[in-house]
């Protein structure tokens, strides 16, 4: 009898020690309803049911993405008219004709100043530099280390690209190499990047044309 006890005890000990914890389980949660509250939070896995409702409930929750697109046609509200203009829909379609039309008609609604170029530079460093390189020569680490198809240089093939085309490419992407960045950058930010690209196109000088505040078109 006592021998069996001893064997049971050592087996239990073996079981306890052999499992090194499931790396996919975070571990003991202190008050699980605080981690998965009834108020919906982004990215929380609601597939774990802290209230033990039902299997059906868990399945439904699992298949409910928390990150979603806004309803089609929604226009964000802004009380500031200067900001509100950026929330209006973009008029040019994602076609070669739209690209040409944007190049001919689309002008920056904000005046290019040193402040916008500086902000554009900060955004460029986060969103463009890894492919286009520090000075836009198309020599970023993704191109150099990743064998990625290199973008044209701002002092080479893309030197005379008009601002409308720059903005259009940022919005919809260009060819296979460049992806659309409309979901990452607001329109205002895209214009600031455009300003910085123009600054690079012009050999790191403020462009004279842009300084002469062009009136906003189609915005």
């Amino acid at each position, binding site marked *: 009898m006592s021998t069996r006890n001893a064997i049971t005890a050592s087996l239990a000990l073996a079981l306890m020690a052999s499992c090194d914890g499931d790396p996919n389980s975070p571990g003991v949660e*202190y008050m699980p309803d605080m981690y998965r509250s009834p108020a919906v939070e982004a990215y929380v896995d609601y597939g774990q049911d802290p209230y033990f409702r039902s299997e059906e409930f868990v399945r439904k929750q699992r298949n409910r993405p928390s990150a979603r697109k806004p309803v089609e046609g929604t226009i964000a509200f802004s009380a500031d008219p200067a900001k509100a203009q950026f929330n209006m829909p973009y008029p040019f379609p994602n076609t070669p004709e739209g690209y040409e039309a944007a190049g001919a008609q689309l002008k920056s609604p904000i005046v290019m100043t040193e402040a916008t170029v500086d902000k554009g530079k900060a955004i460029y460093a986060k969103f463009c530099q890894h492919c286009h390189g520090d000075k836009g020569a198309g020599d970023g680490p993704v191109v150099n280390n990743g064998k990625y198809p290199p973008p044209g240089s701002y002092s080479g*093939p893309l030197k005379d690209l008009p601002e409308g085309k720059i903005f259009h490419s940022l919005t919809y992407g260009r060819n296979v190499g460049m992806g659309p960045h409309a979901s990452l950058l607001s329109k205002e930010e895209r214009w600031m990047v455009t300003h910085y690209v123009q600054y690079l196109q012009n050999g790191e000088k403020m462009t004279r044309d842009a300084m002469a505040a062009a009136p906003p078109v189609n915005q």
Partner: protein
Amino acid sequence: MLPRLFLPPDFRDLLPSNPLGMPLPACLSRRSIRSIRTAFALILSLSLSAAQAQPADAALYASGEKLFKGNCASCHKVDSKMTGPALRGAKVKWEGKGDLYAWVKNSQAYLKTGNELAVKIWDEYKPTIMTPVALTNEEIDAIFYYVDNWAPPVADTPKPPTGEPTDQGSNNWLWLLVLALLFLIVGLSLSGVKRSLANAVSEAEGKGTLPETSRMQRFRAWAWEHKVFMSFVGLFITVWVILKLWDAAWVIGVYGGDEVPHYKPEQPILFNHTLHAGKANKGNLAINCQYCHSSAEKSKHAGIPSVNVCMNCHKAVSTGRTEAGTKEIKKIHQHAGWDPEKGAFTGQEEPVRWVKVHNLPDHAYFSHATHVSVGKLECQECHGPIDEQMDVAEQWAPLTMKWCITCHNEREVKMAGNGYYDEVMARLNGDTILGHGELKKYLEDGKITVKELGGWECAKCHY
């Protein structure tokens, strides 16, 4: 779960790494196989690079390479389709069928001549228009010379995976248990032997057999005889258990930090943070953290990128550096509904079910925007060396209240040029007559901490 409660990691360190000196055949063989494989790959690559043909006209090849990379490479590859057709063999293909130079210089203008081959290519790749390029015929010749003589680089020798698979810890426990079991069996049989001997002696002395008692009864009798020793042992065990439970209670709900193994769940797509965000001088891509987690400076959440952000690059990249990488990229294509053969979206999308790693309880409010755009913290200050050491994301910081308020107490606020603190600074440096005199005490130590701006107010984080 259990080890977190009963076997805190520091306990593991007390054990020798290989207590019995027993060989670990699995580890050894894995390592030797790897070295053999590496050596083999090295020999293969050396022999291939020796066999690789060198272009006859090196100068022409070099100038062609430069022109190709500057003017063509963003849309054309040598051997495979991208935005435009593959370029290898184009010169032969065009011979006698049309004017390749005019086609390259301005494809739309040349298309109007109605050339058969040009129309065929346009039908395949429209509506993307090739931008007219200002190149001379000699330059175009150089480009095609480069393209026709280009050889794909020999695959790099497979990089040995960083870090040996460490299952040493669990092995130790296994060996210890085997040892304990052996001792138990030996002990039990010895006690049986001892008892039979005692019986035999007692019978030989003519006292008859010993009274039939169970082991437990004998143990009790022995313990009663050694009261003092047994009470010390009992006290020791009780205190040890209480201390361990106390320690374990401290790390309930803590999934990061120095005291517990970091929470590192397996994700549906094995995204490699080091490869994408690591330093460029180590051969990584050095993409800024905020390219993918772009809402970190605008929102409470840093944001998990949606697959369209992955597809910004992975439309053009369908093969990884390793086969395992290619497999993971295929998964992205499946989720995004991208057909790499046709180069088009199929429209059959499926959400990726990422596993949330950092899970802050709902009673604490945290905003990434505040810490990133106002506090100007680097991601790595809270998330650890995610760009250098963590192939897989894990919870680095403990996210306990102690951790939060320790930083709030020590951290100096970056006031200058921030914009957010101009008013605060104006008042701190303001006129004593306006009743701001008592604020001067905050400037005495020469720095303003988060705590001094209210970073320790309960309602800042709990409301």
